[in-house]
């Protein structure tokens, strides 16, 4: 029987050659715990992330927009399911993960604690929020844990539609009336800073980043991804004809990147603590949906129990 040291050596070797750890491999407890926390939080974010946009499904301005929005929200539910099943390969149960979301023991992305006040927000979320999510997720396709990486590959393929439908919606509104253009600008003003917060706190106050990068769970630091997102988004904003609400946003020719201001980090920590504009509402809604769905789960189990004897 190989000892602990051999196990660790094999694990380190797989990580060092940027290869993947698979479910039946030995892995350090802390690696497993970190992954469970990160994948679960990611899954919860997809599930809670249906709410801000779901708010507008019944009030979509046309059948076309309604079908698109339904398809997008449905995709987010699917993303949650891919990720929960990836987390389960680490030995946690689905029921426990759901319970930890409902009890508030595990978190979800702070971005979904902001309200959606106009239909322009549907476009802005697709463009900026899904755009930031794509920046985060593309490198995660190469994460060191196999099932997580494969879930991310599926998700990234679907995200492109999310971002493009959002940008197209905003382009359409920008060709409309002055009021519609104002709605777009107002929406972008509200979502810009929370979108930058999606990459997490600055590297110097993100204590776990270094270890996660050493383990190959994360492939880029928070600040690197934030910079990349800003650089990608600025020309898109110009093409759209909106301004980004940051007076210090400028091109830095020496660096070949944009300089930009810092989000209000106290606000991020307050939202994470539970003091964002919609935290209470989001969790209450999720709990209610879970309780309201109990009869469906019971009915499915009762039906299966009835079918079982005949099928053996």
């Amino acid at each position, binding site marked *: 029987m190989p000892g602990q040291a051999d196990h660790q050596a094999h694990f380190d070797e797989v990580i060092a050659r940027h290869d993947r750890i698979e479910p039946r491999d030995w892995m350090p407890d802390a690696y497993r715990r970190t992954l469970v926390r990160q994948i679960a939080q990611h899954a919860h974010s997809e599930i809670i992330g249906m709410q801000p946009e779901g708010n507008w499904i019944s009030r979509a301005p046309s059948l076309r927009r309604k079908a698109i929005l339904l398809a997008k929200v449905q995709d987010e539910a699917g993303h949650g399911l891919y990720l929960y099943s990836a987390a389960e390969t680490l030995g946690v149960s689905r029921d426990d993960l759901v319970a930890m979301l409902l009890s508030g023991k595990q978190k979800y992305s702070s971005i979904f604690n902001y309200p959606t006040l106009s239909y322009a927000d549907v476009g802005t979320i697709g463009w900026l929020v899904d755009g930031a999510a794509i920046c985060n997720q593309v490198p995660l396709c190469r994460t060191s844990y196999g099932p997580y990486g494969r879930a991310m590959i599926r998700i990234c393929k679907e995200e492109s539609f999310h971002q493009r439908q959002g*940008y197209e919606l905003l382009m359409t509104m920008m060709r409309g009336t002055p009021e519609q253009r104002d709605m777009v600008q107002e929406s972008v003003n509200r979502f810009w800073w929370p979108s930058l917060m999606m990459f997490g706190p600055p590297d110097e106050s993100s204590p776990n980043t270094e270890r996660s990068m050493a383990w190959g769970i994360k492939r880029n630091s928070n600040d690197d991804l934030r910079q990349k997102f800003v650089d990608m988004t600025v020309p898109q904003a110009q093409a759209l004809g909106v301004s980004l609400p940051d007076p210090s946003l400028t091109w830095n020719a020496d660096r070949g990147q944009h300089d930009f201001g810092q989000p209000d980090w106290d606000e991020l920590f307050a939202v994470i603590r539970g003091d964002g504009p919609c935290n209470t509402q989001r969790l209450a809604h999720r709990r209610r949906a879970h309780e309201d769905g109990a009869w469906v789960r019971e009915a499915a189990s009762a039906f299966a129990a009835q079918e079982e004897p005949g099928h053996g």
Partner: protein
Amino acid sequence: MGEWPLYEVFVRSKRGLNHVHVGSLHAADDEAALRNARDVYTRRNEGVSIWVVRSDAITASSPDEKDSLFDPSGDKVYRHPTFYTIPGSVPHL
């Protein structure tokens, strides 16, 4: 003595990739199926991991219902990124 049960064999060709169905074989039990699968399907380093599952434990869709099963996604072109027209001059989208 009855025929040994049929097993379906799935092989992961390298770390990071999904297990893929490669074929099937008969074996007396699960453990024997795994050993046999190694000999039948991975004699040339085709894999780093094997799954075997009894064929009668698999529920499969039937070819007859192919149309009705997959129809619902047929008319939802808006699920594809190419449905949205965005000028080529807008980068990274």
